[in-house]
């Protein structure tokens, strides 16, 4: 087998080597498959390795020989199990969809297919993307490749672990409240949630539609940028996809071009924020200062309540979106009894504990008598949070926070206390509430050698600001 240095490989380096014939697509893919066969039975990052990799490799190699190769041709990627790839199982790590074969391609898959990306397999996740540790999977937990007793974060923990264990060069995940950024933080890699409306969700299993967004996992900011540039598109199949001209307009409405970085000090004073995380964040701010950025304390007082608003909006949308699983059209079905029995048994058996909890919570929140007090109020708070951020972006170019309030935790540590688990998303949820982009970048190590991570947020459609500060930070930080 060809000796390829996977640890230091990037998309651009791989592309140069593939183009120059230093190694072939086959050789590159085989290196990753060898790692997977060595590590995956223990880590459980992948639920399945696809059976058509050979065909994908051949057609990618052909693109090099006939001169149609792009930067992503032949690049091995891992796909979160909630994105449709026609003819392949997509289960959302749920018993409900254990045997469900995707009937069409999600838009992201279809874009990447055209570029000749090699899809290696589908990765484990918290069932229907509900969780922060990838322990809520119907198919066993995923271990953190850096420390197997610890969780890889979630819900896209399998995708993060696949990249961190060198089982794929890049991966896709979805982020509703932090499900890309938090696992990226826990696995010591880069993870990005783009602006709401940039990457099509057509063919992504809907969790909370006003919050869901697809984004990349990679080892470098530049790689995340390359993937984002490839998958961002205006998709007529998706009603919330924003046309390109409208994006440009909105991005340029944030006129302020500045090296000022906002730090929401009031967020850091709350309970439950780890001391080591705070210390590392201060060190990261010092790095930014040395790089020439000006740090400004900002106030986002209502946004502190983002997580509370999120745990109203999100379960409400979950209960509506998951109503489609009825045991009639697809997915798990128990055909005993009358029609009502079919609904109740199919759903009761098919959904795991956390999914059922959120459906019940959402049903309660949307029920007559509680709707105004919860859902209506959360909507008002959401609007206020949006305005707060808009105002802050009149004075700073980017906002910085830690990605997670605490470092990676041990498996089983938070499984019995849902609220403690929900706290994982404290700093990542506001970007989803507002619809702005956020990126998580490794920022050092804990005393136990586990990864720290910093998050940057930018105004709508200003991903370029995240890539700029991200690259500067990445090149200056000592890992």
């Amino acid at each position, binding site marked *: 087998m060809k000796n390829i240095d996977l640890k230091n490989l990037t998309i651009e380096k791989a592309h140069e080597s593939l183009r120059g014939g230093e190694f072939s697509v086959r050789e590159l893919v085989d290196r990753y498959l060898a790692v997977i066969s060595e590590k995956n039975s223990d880590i459980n990052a992948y639920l399945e390795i696809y059976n058509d990799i050979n065909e994908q490799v051949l057609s990618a190699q052909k693109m090099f020989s006939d001169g149609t190769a792009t930067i992503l041709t032949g690049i091995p990627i891992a796909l979160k199990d909630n994105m449709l790839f026609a003819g392949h199982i997509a289960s959302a790590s749920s018993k409900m969809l254990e045997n469900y074969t995707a*009937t069409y391609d999600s838009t992201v898959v279809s874009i990447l297919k055209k570029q000749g990306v090699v899809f290696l397999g589908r990765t484990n996740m918290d069932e229907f993307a509900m969780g922060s540790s990838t322990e809520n999977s119907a198919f066993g937990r995923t271990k953190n490749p850096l420390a197997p007793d610890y969780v890889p974060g979630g819900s896209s923990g399998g995708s993060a672990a696949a990249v961190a264990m060198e089982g794929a060069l890049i991966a896709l995940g979805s982020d509703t409240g932090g499900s890309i950024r938090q696992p990226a933080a826990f696995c010591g890699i880069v993870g990005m949630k783009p602006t709401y409306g940039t990457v099509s969700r057509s063919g992504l299993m809907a969790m909370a539609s006003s919050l869901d967004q697809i984004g990349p996992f990679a080892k470098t900011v530049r790689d995340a940028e390359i993937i984002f540039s490839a998958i961002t598109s205006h998709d007529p199949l998706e009603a919330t996809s924003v046309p390109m001209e409208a994006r440009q307009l909105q991005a340029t409405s944030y006129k302020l071009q500045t090296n000022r970085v906002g730090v929401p000090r009031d967020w850091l004073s709350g309970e439950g924020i780890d001391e080591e995380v705070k210390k590392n964040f201060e060190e990261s701010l010092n790095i930014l200062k040395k790089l020439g950025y000006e740090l400004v304390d900002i106030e986002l007082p209502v946004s502190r309540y983002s997580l*509370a608003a999120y745990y*109203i909006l999100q379960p409400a949308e979950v209960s509506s979106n998951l109503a489609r699983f009825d045991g009639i059209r697809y997915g798990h079905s128990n055909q005993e009894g009358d029609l009502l029995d*079919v609904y109740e048994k199919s759903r009761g058996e098919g959904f795991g504990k956390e999914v059922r*909890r959120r459906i*019940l919570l959402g049903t309660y929140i949307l*029920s007559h008598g509680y709707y105004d007090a*919860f859902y209506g109020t959360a909507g008002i708070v959401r609007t206020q949070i949006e305005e707060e951020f808009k105002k802050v972006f009149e004075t700073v170019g980017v906002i910085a926070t830690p990605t997670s309030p605490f470092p990676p935790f041990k498996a089983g540590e938070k499984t019995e206390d849902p*609220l403690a688990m*929900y706290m994982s998303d404290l700093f990542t949820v506001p970007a989803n509430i507002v619809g702005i982009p956020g990126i998580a970048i490794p920022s050092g190590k804990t005393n136990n050698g586990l990864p720290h991570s910093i998050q940057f947020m930018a105004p709508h459609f200003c991903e370029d600001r995240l890539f700029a500060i991200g690259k500067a930070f990445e090149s200056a930080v000592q890992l």
Partner: protein
Amino acid sequence: MNISDIKKLARLARLSATDDELEAAAKGMDPILEYVAQVQKVAGMVGEKNIPDLINRGKDDVVTIETGTYTNVVLAEAPAHEGNYVKVKKIL
């Protein structure tokens, strides 16, 4: 939240569950509801002027694929079907 509340919710949400499961679910619900109720405090601060201004985005109702293109793959996923129809149990 007590067991009878949660039983009603499970019925509304079309979820079968054992009494033990519902008991456990009811217990877990209160701390979450207490936590999210914080929004009521904040909403008092910001007032009603912030009611979300939402618009529905629709698509033109036009057929873009040839009828029947996906019929077989879609039916293959249905637990029960007859001809080109998904089969549903009799209601009346």
